[in-house]
């Protein structure tokens, strides 16, 4: 077991698809409660790493050791709400439904929906929600199971720019209130430096850079010091001119 309960330890993790090795013996140590962003170009193996930690890569070959807490939640790029269940039932998926435990879970689910600003939408069908609302419902679903480790795979990648800004604030607030360990996979360097306390750069299956972001919150995207961090990350990613990054990486 991990000495640091609630944190995440990955040792010598290798993953590959057939001939192609995607992760080359990755080591990673995240202390409990740290907010870490993982950036990398597409094909760098960041999603493969996250899926390995989440334990949903059954068909992928590889070895290595992963020590993760018991309660792990995953937020995907799409909201992945079941279209045939109402919003509240989606948040409650897999939680106890009967007795005292069931009532506690239902209370937690309602509270989580209220926290993400979806109070009153409990009985809506997922296809009645906007993209941003659906993604907030997905956040509430994660939150309601009180995760010790929150894995997020480009959770804001499909949202429009305005919604994304709101979601950044929301995610950071939720983290401050509930304090889970967070591993946020993103291709957006601005998002990484704005939110995370530490940014990892994954390049061709190995960590290229491990950069602590030592700035107080809330951070402003206009902060000069943020720009310095961003430039270091972009250099590590081999990008000179940043506006092209989003197109290249997506």
């Amino acid at each position, binding site marked *: 077991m991990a000495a640091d309960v609630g944190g995440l330890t990955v040792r010598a993790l290798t993953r590959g698809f057939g001939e192609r090795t995607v992760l080359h013996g990755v080591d990673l140590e995240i202390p409990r409660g740290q907010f870490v962003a993982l950036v990398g170009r597409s094909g760098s193996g960041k999603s493969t790493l996250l899926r390995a930690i*989440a*334990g*949903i890569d059954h068909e992928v070959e590889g070895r290595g050791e992963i020590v993760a807490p018991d309660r*792990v*939640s*995953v937020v*995907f790029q*799409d909201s*992945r709400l*079941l*279209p*045939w*269940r109402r919003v509240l039932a989606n948040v409650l*998926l*897999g939680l106890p439904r009967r007795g005292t435990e069931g009532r506690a879970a239902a209370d937690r689910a309602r509270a989580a929906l209220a926290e993400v600003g979806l109070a009153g939408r409990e009985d809506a*069908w997922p*296809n009645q929600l906007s993209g941003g609302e659906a993604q907030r419902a997905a956040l509430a*679903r994660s939150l309601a*199971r009180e995760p010790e480790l929150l894995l997020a795979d480009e959770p804001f990648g499909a949202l429009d720019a305005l919604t994304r800004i709101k979601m950044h604030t929301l995610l950071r607030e939720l983290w401050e209130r509930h304090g889970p360990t967070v591993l946020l996979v993103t291709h957006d360097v601005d998002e990484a430096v704005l939110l995370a306390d530490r940014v990892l750069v994954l390049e061709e299956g190995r960590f290229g850079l491990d950069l602590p972001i030592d700035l107080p919150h809330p951070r402003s995207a206009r902060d000069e010091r943020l720009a310095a961090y961003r430039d270091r990350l972009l250099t590590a990613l081999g990008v000179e001119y940043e506006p092209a990054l989003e197109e290249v990486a997506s």
Partner: protein
Amino acid sequence: MSDTALDIRLNTTSDTQPDTRRRVRRLGPGKRIPFTRGIGPLLLIGVWSLGSAAGRLDPRILPAPWSVVHTGWQLWQSGTLGPDLAISLQRASEGFAIGLTAGVVLALLAGLSRVGAAIIDGNVQINRALPILGMIPLFILWLGIGETFKISIIAIAVYIPIYINLSAGLSAIDRRFVELAETLGLSRWEFLRQVVVPGALPGFFTGLRLGVTSAWLALVVVEEVNATSGLGYLMYQQATYGLIDSVVLGLVIYGIWGFASDFVVRLIERRVLSWRQTLAD
């Protein structure tokens, strides 16, 4: 490109009354008409009645609707129709119940386990290709000409469309939902209940509607080939005496049953699948 841009500019500056709504070709079928499905059959009966009343339909070829109803009433009064209807309904519903259960169980086994698929799927595909009429002699040999044989044939006719469509529904379930269920730590039972069954319901309902119709079709076949009771038997017997009214009566009853059962299944479908927004809504 530039031409269209110019056109739009010219339009907005013209003196004609501005249309506040942009015209876009509407591709959906439009507003719902109440009792849509009843309208066609009612029209058909109307044309039939008019044709008969005007003397344009030879009663030896197609008797008038009222004489069919009259024949039905007479047969009912004489105690011939009632028991035959009852036995037919019983056969159809027993065969349907067995076929439904078998179709659902087999599709779930084949859809949720690789071993199940390996054993079951190929055989069902072969069974699907076998004509029901061709199987009848073999089944009579195995089961005799009693009720068991008739119900078995109906069950076979029912389980195949249910199996095929439910299987299609199961394989159409998004893999991403399976992943989600894994990250949420759902038990196998919860996975079935929350993801698999609701996800496969649209396919299941298609199969159910086809299955209901198949039950009626198979019923006529088994009752006309080898029976001493039932609606099909009655029709067949009366036809040998040239009583065409009774034949039409039998067909009308089959039609009503088929229409009614389809209506019931659709009603259930609309309630159960209310989360869907489709072209039909």
